[in-house]
């Protein structure tokens, strides 16, 4: 890119491009049942089932309804970002749409920012619905500060899993992507204490958990409501933040390599 040949971009507005990109990414997702079911329906339905209807089954003193607000919230956010970016990227890449977009004067960052904003918006809607359920039928009592800080942690969790999804979507084909992401997300969610408290799990699962991004995300969320220790293997918040930051950087690097490989096919 030479700096001296700068032609004025005319009347196009970057702010408007970013806003439209986000708006249409969101519309795309909202019209896609394959996206809404794992991100919206699953966490809410699971919460109603295990957090509300069956919460007294264990019989102990453990406050499952409160625990699961954080962990199903984390599960839904992870799905929102993983499926939104993973499947979306794989489809658009594999079917030539990305190539077309690269030929337009679209600012490349607008694509990423738009998708991220759309996934975050879906995550925020899901978290709001979940909190409403928890505070009403779930009988969960948290202070306003706890609700807000939990919501903040949950929605921010979109970022590392968006990077993860982007990495997967940059390498996996459009047909394999949904299955591949399910195969990644479901066992990870299970082993990270997103569905059941880790203390109910066999020891080896707990040993694996500390290497999984959803585990650290879940622990950060539980930490906001004083339950990180509730699993028996609480982590200092800082360690989780560092783990997820490094993970995000690695995932973005892997995604970048995938993008370079795609360019290599045409760019070689």
């Amino acid at each position, binding site marked *: *890119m*030479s700096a001296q*040949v*700068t*032609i004025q*971009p*005319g*009347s*196009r*507005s970057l702010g*408007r*491009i970013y806003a*439209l*990109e986000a708006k*249409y990414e969101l*519309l*795309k997702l909202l*019209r*896609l049942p394959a996206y809404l079911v794992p991100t919206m329906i699953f966490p809410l339905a699971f919460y109603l089932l295990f957090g509300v209807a069956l919460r007294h089954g264990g019989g102990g003193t453990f406050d499952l309804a409160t625990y699961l607000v954080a962990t199903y919230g984390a599960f839904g956010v992870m799905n929102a970002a993983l499926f939104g970016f993973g499947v979306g990227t794989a*489809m*658009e890449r594999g*079917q*030539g*749409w990305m*190539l*077309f977009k*690269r*030929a*337009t*004067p*679209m*600012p490349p960052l607008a694509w990423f920012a738009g998708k991220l904003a759309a996934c975050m918006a879906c995550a925020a809607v899901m978290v709001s619905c979940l909190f409403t359920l928890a505070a009403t039928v779930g009988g969960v009592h948290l202070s306003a500060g706890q609700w807000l800080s939990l919501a903040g942690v949950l929605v921010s969790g979109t970022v590392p899993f968006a990077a993860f999804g982007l990495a997967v979507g940059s390498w996996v084909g459009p047909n394999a992507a949904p299955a591949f992401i399910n195969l990644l997300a479901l066992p990870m969610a299970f082993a990270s204490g997103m569905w059941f408290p880790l203390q109910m799990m066999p020891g080896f699962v707990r040993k694996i958990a500390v290497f999984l991004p959803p585990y650290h995300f879940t622990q950060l969320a539980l930490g906001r409501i004083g339950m990180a220790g509730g699993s028996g293997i609480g982590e200092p918040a800082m360690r989780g933040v560092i783990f997820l930051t490094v993970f995000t950087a690695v995932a973005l690097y892997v995604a970048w390599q995938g993008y370079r490989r795609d360019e290599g096919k*045409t*760019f*070689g």
Partner: protein
Amino acid sequence: MNDTIQSIETAAELRGAVKKYGAVTALGGVDLTIRAGEVVAVLGPNGAGKTTAVQILLGLARPSAGSARLFGLEPREAAARMRVGAMLQVSKVPETLKVREHIHLISSYYPRPLPMREVIAAAGLGGLEERLFGKLSGGQRQRVLFALALCGDPDLLFLDEPTVGMDVEARRSFWEQIRRRAGAGRSVLLTTHYLEEADALADRIVLLDRGRIVAEGTPAEIKARVLGKRIRCRTRLSLAELAALPGVRDARRPEETGEAEILAAEAEPVVRELLARDPGVSGLDVRGAGLEEAFLALTGNHQIEKIETEVAA
């Protein structure tokens, strides 16, 4: 920018462009210039390197050697891309957005986009604005891709095999839109493997074969070179004698049939002479030479080798 400058401006240029994918050479050193206001058709069979040439010009592929410029700029610069629209061979557009929404978004990337209703009218999408892309027929999808190429009101429009899969009527109305574009002083580069399409639209045809330009000229010049008659017969005359007949461009005798095949601008003088020199001629068959024969004439024997390798593969 005034009219005088624009009229002499070069819209797109390839210089010595080479593209290799591993051991395969997709483009073997191509020079191509598209001037402002010109419609150029890159014509060639599948695998000729047409799409590769377009991708290099659009900055989607980097040439292994040589260079590409759009309006004097590096093709990947935003300032160059703002003056260009492209209809590529896209198998799927996101299906859960409506026609109007797709156009709205892509239009926003450009400084002076066309008004929505003009894009809809030009692409023949009236009444389909609120339809989800996933609910469109194949032909309607092609029209959306055309609309997305057009919506930025580009100075140069790239159309990569735009009418593949279109029926005759759709193709005609599509051609009409491209002519209108050219009439408004915009440049168009289209790739096609239909000689008829190149003839109907282009100011200049570039004939590409196996990554090289084998002929270039106005449609009339190209047709004069490529259109002619194909004469088949059994004759005792040698290939050298046949090639020396008046107006013969090419003569060959494939081993499978043993029949002579002659390509000529006109059939009558050749046949008259042929019968005079060999009264024993049999199985005489005269046909208009199609594009396939034209390529044969222009590219020599390797086209036959190519067909054979394709069959073998």
